[in-house]
């Protein structure tokens, strides 16, 4: 059920998760009269991490819902591992919403383990699996805390582990750190980079923070204002998830950031 969690001592790896390539071809979507996405093309190879940045309301969240199989496109195809059936996408992709949405009636560990419980695992083995992750990813000791007792950063960690533990090859992350203060956000970016190194997945990360996208991703797609379309796709010059301070001051990184910002400014004016 959960191959990525089988070996807690696995070494750092960038090995691809097989059969989890994501492919969007000519994807359009509209809510009634309002077109939200227009002819979006996006490819993510197995184990790749792609960032999506764009102005507010450009359909970034809709894009994630399409990828996850929570929504169907009005036109074009969205496929994971070659299948475009919504049920297959739902089974292969886990969605992390913008706010943590931890359930206040469960402890941190029961929140993290909820996917396993949904998949039919009994409470104790589900907790044991979540406990392993808590220890590996710096949450040891917080298993029985109530969500209200955790800091914003901690809550996001639990929310990310909740997404990870579902054991799905693709993760759709919707502005996971938007609500955090700048310092915590920086820490969380490093934490997420480390988590993805230890447990690689195919990831689509929506964010409005260009620097975050460049730091965490292999490639970054820039969307235009509504209806969103991909107006630029940048390869990140630095290796994903390296030392953050070193990365953000690297001249190539700075140049990529300028390029992305320029595309974003251009796209915000409408295309």
């Amino acid at each position, binding site marked *: 059920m959960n191959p990525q969690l089988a070996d807690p001592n696995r070494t750092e790896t960038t090995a691809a998760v097989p059969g989890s390539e994501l492919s969007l071809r000519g994807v359009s979507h509209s809510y009634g009269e309002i077109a939200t996405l227009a002819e979006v093309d996006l490819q993510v190879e197995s184990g790749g991490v792609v960032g999506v940045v764009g102005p507010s309301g450009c359909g970034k969240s809709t894009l994630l819902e399409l990828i996850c199989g*929570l929504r169907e496109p009005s036109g074009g195809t969205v496929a994971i591992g070659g299948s475009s059936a919504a049920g297959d996408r739902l089974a292969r992709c886990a969605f992390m*919403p913008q706010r943590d949405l931890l359930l206040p009636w469960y402890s941190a560990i029961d929140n993290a383990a909820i996917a396993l419980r*949904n998949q039919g695992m009994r409470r104790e083995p589900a907790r044991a699996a979540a406990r392993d992750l808590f220890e590996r990813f710096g949450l040891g000791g917080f298993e029985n805390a109530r969500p209200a007792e955790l800091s914003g950063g901690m809550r996001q960690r639990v929310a990310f582990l909740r997404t990870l533990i579902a054991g799905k090859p693709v993760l759709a992350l919707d502005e996971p750190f938007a609500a955090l203060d700048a310092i915590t956000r920086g820490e969380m970016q490093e934490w997420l980079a480390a988590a993805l190194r230890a447990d690689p997945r195919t990831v689509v990360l929506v964010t409005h923070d260009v620097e975050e996208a460049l730091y965490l991703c292999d490639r970054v797609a820039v969307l235009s204002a509504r209806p969103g379309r991909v107006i630029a796709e940048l390869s990140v010059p630095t290796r994903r998830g390296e030392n953050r301070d070193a990365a953000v001051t690297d001249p190539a990184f700075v140049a990529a950031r300028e390029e992305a910002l320029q595309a974003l400014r251009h796209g915000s004016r409408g295309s």
Partner: protein
Amino acid sequence: MRPQRTTRWRRVLLPGLLLAALIGLWQIAASSGAVAELLSLEPYLVPSPAEIAQSLWENRGLLAENAWVTLREMLFGILAAIVVGVGFAVVMHRWRVMRDAAYPLIIASQTIPVLVIAPILTVWFGYGIAPKVVIIALVCFFPLTINALDGLRAVEPEAVKMMRSLDASRWQLFRRVEAPTALPHVFTGAKIAVVIAPIGAVFAEWAGSSAGLGHLIQSDTANFEVARQFATVVVLSAMALALMALTVLAERRVVGWR
């Protein structure tokens, strides 16, 4: 928590003082005969709090006997309202077509004064406990249904998406997210139900009964037993307050995460 204590004392002390002052005023007004004179009544028709307390004590057996009858009616009625109200809410939440069909009717049904159809229900169900339970349930089910439905709809759409993406079935979504979200709202409905249940009970007994606090008030009206009527009212509201306290306690236990 320290500063909380003084406010808690104020919360108990101030209403207590006000109540004592009001009872004191009433005592003076009634025992001096001023009110009776003003209303041109015999003094025994305007009992003082002391006389009501005395009646309460002297009639303790009679009051307890009838209170038990009314309490049972109320408990069964409230229980039935919870089961039916929450059931309605779940069905209306689960099936959109049911909500569209039933919701306007449920709202409209509140224009029918249930208390007026109490005599009809007595004709149908006889003089036993059944018509009382039905009437109390009819009075109480509305706040329960509406609050439970509001609670079920208070779930954030994003939480539903998250759960669906994490492989939750419809039932798991209900059990792990919707039901816990709705619970505090159900308790709100139950608190309203507990307060209005005594009204339903009294009217139901007035429509035809052989025992109960409502019955007692009715027969005391015919005999001008005003002091005992007041004593009965005191018992009735004490019962409602006790039920309220029990509901609040249950809420704290069940909805502990709040």
